[in-house]
């Protein structure tokens, strides 16, 4: 046998032990195959495609039918599609992509196998969060966002500044983070996909129907209404701070609870 002496052993029992190989495996799922390309195509076609349609094709179609549609109207429709639809569609995308991330590993037995190695359970959850977070940030936010900003800037009537765009896109990103962390937490807590999708979709669509402002202000449920204000040149209302901070706090709490719970689960 080859002597083990020649190999450099990983020492210590830190809370992040095993994060490196786990991250490499998760990143590989995103970047080594076609997954990243498929995601980029989906989101560019959906968000930027609809934005381009609203900015450049819709006015021509309206003109062909002798309907009145100004460039400002087209810009408004484009904003609504890009940011409004983006808020909802990206959250659904996160749910679809992450629904299996932990449940599948628990049910198939790969989690049991991996956790029999010197791996901390905290590292297992963090690897899912970090790699998927990066993958989604690049394919769902960065690339479609950059193309979207370029499309807005190319419009004759658009006065959207970079700061305004980034503020609105930041709200979309925060909403996405909330659903990434919620889906991961539910993946830890549950063993089947239907209840996971039920809860996350229920939050996304049912939350907007909750009429009690005292509750809603501590949730991301009305972020879809806030998201258009910065790109329309309007200031965010004071309650927006509570909503944004609460959403960020919820996301952090979801991760803490997911790690805590995963450390106590049996396989």
């Amino acid at each position, binding site marked *: 046998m080859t002597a083990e002496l*020649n*190999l*450099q*052993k990983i020492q210590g029992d830190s809370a992040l032990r095993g994060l490196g190989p786990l991250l490499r495996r998760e990143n590989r799922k995103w970047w080594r195959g076609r997954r990243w390309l498929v995601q980029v195509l989906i989101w560019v076609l959906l968000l930027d495609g609809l934005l381009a349609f609203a900015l450049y094709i819709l006015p021509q179609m309206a003109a062909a039918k002798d309907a009145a549609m100004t460039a400002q109207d087209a810009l408004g429709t484009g904003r609504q599609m890009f940011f409004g639809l983006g808020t909802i569609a990206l959250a659904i995308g996160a749910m679809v992509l992450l629904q299996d991330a932990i449940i599948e590993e628990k049910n198939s*037995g*790969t989690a049991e*196998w991996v956790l029999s190695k010197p791996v901390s359970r905290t590292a297992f959850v963090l690897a899912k969060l970090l790699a998927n977070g990066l993958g989604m940030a690049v394919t769902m936010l960065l690339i479609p966002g950059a193309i979207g900003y370029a499309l807005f800037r190319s419009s004759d009537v658009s006065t959207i500044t970079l700061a305004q765009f980034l503020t609105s896109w930041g709200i979309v990103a925060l909403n996405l983070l909330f659903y990434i962390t919620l889906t991961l937490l539910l993946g830890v807590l549950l063993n089947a996909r239907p209840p996971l999708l039920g809860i996350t979709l229920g939050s996304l669509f049912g939350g907007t129907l909750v009429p009690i402002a005292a509750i809603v202000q501590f949730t991301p449920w009305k972020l879809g209404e806030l998201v258009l204000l910065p790109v329309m040149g309007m200031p965010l209302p004071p309650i927006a701070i509570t909503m944004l901070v609460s959403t960020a706090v919820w996301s952090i709490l979801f991760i803490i609870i997911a790690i805590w719970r995963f450390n106590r689960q049996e396989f």
Partner: protein
Amino acid sequence: MSNFVIETTDLSKTYGNVTALEGLSLQVPKNAIFGFLGPNGAGKTTTMKLLLGLIRPTSGRGHIFGHDIATENLAIRTRIGYLPQQPTFYNEMTARETLRFAAGFFYSGPKAQIEARIEETLRLVGLEDKADRPVGGFSGGERQRLGIAQAQINYPDLLILDEPAAALDPLGRRDVLNIMERLRAYTTIFYSTHILDDVQQVSDTVAILNHGRLVTQGPIDTLLNGNGRTIFSATLRGDTHNLYQTISRQPWVENITSLPQNGVTRWQIDVAGPEETAAENQLFRLLAQDEQVVVTAYGRKKFELEEVFMQLVEGDNHDR
């Protein structure tokens, strides 16, 4: 420093009202191939998962290499390799990538040495020619071999194998047993199985578990010699009536079981434990001196593991 790699004391695990493991006190000696036997549902997998820290004990304690299984499990897992009952890997990875992934939890470099170790491990389990095929297309036997390969990628001091040959055909089983034999020189192997032939072939120490309780444990030779009982068997031809009376009167005879079969009579003579030497000295002489009887076969009874297993498990079932 203890000579035992695994030591558990009153280790128990319950799920609600169901007791999966009850008061298990086990000692696995260093460099043993320790067969952990029991019917389905006896608690073998539960025990292994407790040792690996995948589940937590309800009560009792356990130590591996002197580390507590409940509080120092990460340190334990740096020195062991584990093959689950149904090995599942990431289907998109090749066998080589799977081993590279597993090695990444133990070694940081040098890369060339890690690759050499992977190559060596692939050779050990006979997967060199399938090394670059995705695991998703592997047969059950190939998966099992890969399972063994990944379990020992880190030169483990202890290999825990859960039913390593259960899903394999006879050739696959033989291969797995050969691999275990080869690894014996480097490591302690603690494995569960219900294939008793395999245990008899490779194990030196065994424990039998039934309904979550330990029925017996010890060296396999002791178990096959009757686990403290001394039994002689004799095959006789002729009229055995008088001889039966003579032998029965001996103070060291506990019981004689007589079974007529195809013109001969087979006797099984149970000897009282402390009188083993007296029986050895006198029994054959007594049998041979009876002129009405011809002794066609005689010897100390060697048990088959299956026989011992069935006796112990059924005995335990009756005691419940």
